[in-house]
């Protein structure tokens, strides 16, 4: 089982690299969907395991929640937003893709070197999953920085959230159930609010390029 989880954690990390290499908003959404699916798979494996060994089924509920929310609903929501804002195809990122990817590599190395020295985190099998999932968080953060479009930033935020989910899942078998539930609700509301804001930005600024949000300074 831990082999499966190791591999899945690597694949999730890989999916965030793929996201970084994406150029179109449509493919951001698809990659995010795939990443969420992988996370749901992790939750599913852990859920079945905990059902068989301890008789708990809360992780399975969380898994179901992830599928409904992150695999189906949020991508659809984002897609709707994307269709409605009449997005023009433009270059969306600041640096070119190979450089972005190499920076991401640096982030993985960084999180490895920072986390490998912490007592209690540096036990081998646990460490790989932890490092990978924490790297997903940093890559999500970097994705937000590297993209200029508002929807790209929402996706970055979602990837950070995915990274947190997977960190919690792999390191602590998930947070207490009620907390997981609350996080999901928060996430949903956050995405809805951000989606609405994208509309308003588009309305007022005739673009969803966040570089134009530069009126407030000092």
């Amino acid at each position, binding site marked *: 089982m831990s*082999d*499966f989880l*190791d*591999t899945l*954690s*690597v*694949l999730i*990390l*890989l999916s965030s*690299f*793929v996201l970084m*290499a994406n150029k179109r908003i449509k493919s951001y959404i698809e990659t995010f969907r795939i990443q969420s699916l992988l996370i749901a798979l992790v939750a599913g494996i852990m859920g079945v395991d905990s059902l068989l060994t301890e008789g708990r089924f809360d992780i399975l509920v969380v898994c179901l929640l992830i599928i409904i929310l992150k695999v189906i609903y949020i991508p659809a929501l984002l897609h709707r937003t994307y269709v409605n804002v009449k997005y023009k195809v433009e270059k969306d990122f600041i640096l070119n*893709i*190979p450089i972005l*990817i*190499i920076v*991401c*590599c640096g982030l*993985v*190395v960084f999180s*490895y070197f920072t986390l*490998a020295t912490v007592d209690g985190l540096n036990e*081998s*099998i646990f*460490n*790989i999953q932890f*490092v*990978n999932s924490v790297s997903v968080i940093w890559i999500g953060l970097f994705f937000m920085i590297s993209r200029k479009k508002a929807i790209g930033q929402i996706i970055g935020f979602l990837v950070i959230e995915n990274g947190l989910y997977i960190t919690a899942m792999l390191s602590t078998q998930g947070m207490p159930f009620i907390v997981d539930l609350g996080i999901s609700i928060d996430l949903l509301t956050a995405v809805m609010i951000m989606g609405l804001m994208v509309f308003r930005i588009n309305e007022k600024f005739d673009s969803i390029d966040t570089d134009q949000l530069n009126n407030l300074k000092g």
Partner: protein
Amino acid sequence: MNSMIYILVQILVIIMAAPLVNGIIKKIKALTQKRKGAPVFQMYFDIYKLLQKNSVVSEVSSWIFKVTPYIVFTTAIAAALLVPVSTKLITQQIPGDFIMLVSILALGRFFMMAAALDTAGTFGGMGSSREAMISSLIEPSILVSLFTVGLISQSTSLPQIMNAVQNTGVPLLHPVYIMVFLALLIVIIAETSRIPVDDPSTHLELTMVHEAMILEYSGRHLALMEYGAAIKQLTFITLLVNILIPSDQLIGFTGIGALALSLVIYLLKVVLLSVIIAIIEVNTVKFRLFSIPNLAALSFILAFLGILQYFILGGSHV
């Protein structure tokens, strides 16, 4: 004696099977396009036909042009010798390792590019420059991914790596190996001039890379060039299937029967991978030349993540 057998079997298997891979890929592509397509063995006939014919050599070209087909073919065979098709065959250390493999192939490639420049045709030069770019982008990821498996098995020799990996169980479930597998898959696509890097079935000047380099060749020379490319392709496929999908540990007995069985399984794996490559080729479109660095970057990242995962695991845990 044993090494004689090794060389014999190795050369036989590789030479016999190499054109088959091309045949399978072409057949599958044809089938997905609702065509009947050429027979699987078409390439054997083509090569036979070409070998019968004389080759036309441009007056302005030098000896490099004439000698290159032979160098390409021999370097391909030499490279193939370094990658055992079956671990049941190895009884003693084979000289050479994967660094040598990469350099031998680089030698062949160097001559191929030189010959393409030699005829002073526009396409030749274009093909050479593109080939130089692609190969320089892709080579780091071959080396890094092979170093990763090398680190795990504490050796750079391919037979030893293969032996060591057999003890891992199912390597494709392992985080390190899965990264290396994906990285090498991209490497194979790039090295064997397949879509999305290059399109082997067209002669469109905007896109062709490998075809542009061998455009001036005909007859025997062309046969050798094509054959060399096919052998190189099979060598890479062998590398991938024998390292990352090891099967010889499943055969419990030794002797000639074991060898035969392991060769059969090997051929099955090769067919399987050819099918996978064909499917990838059918489902993707060719990239712009300037997008190829992105693909190479992806391959390098995969290899790099692989080596990183190895270190995260503490090295000993694999």
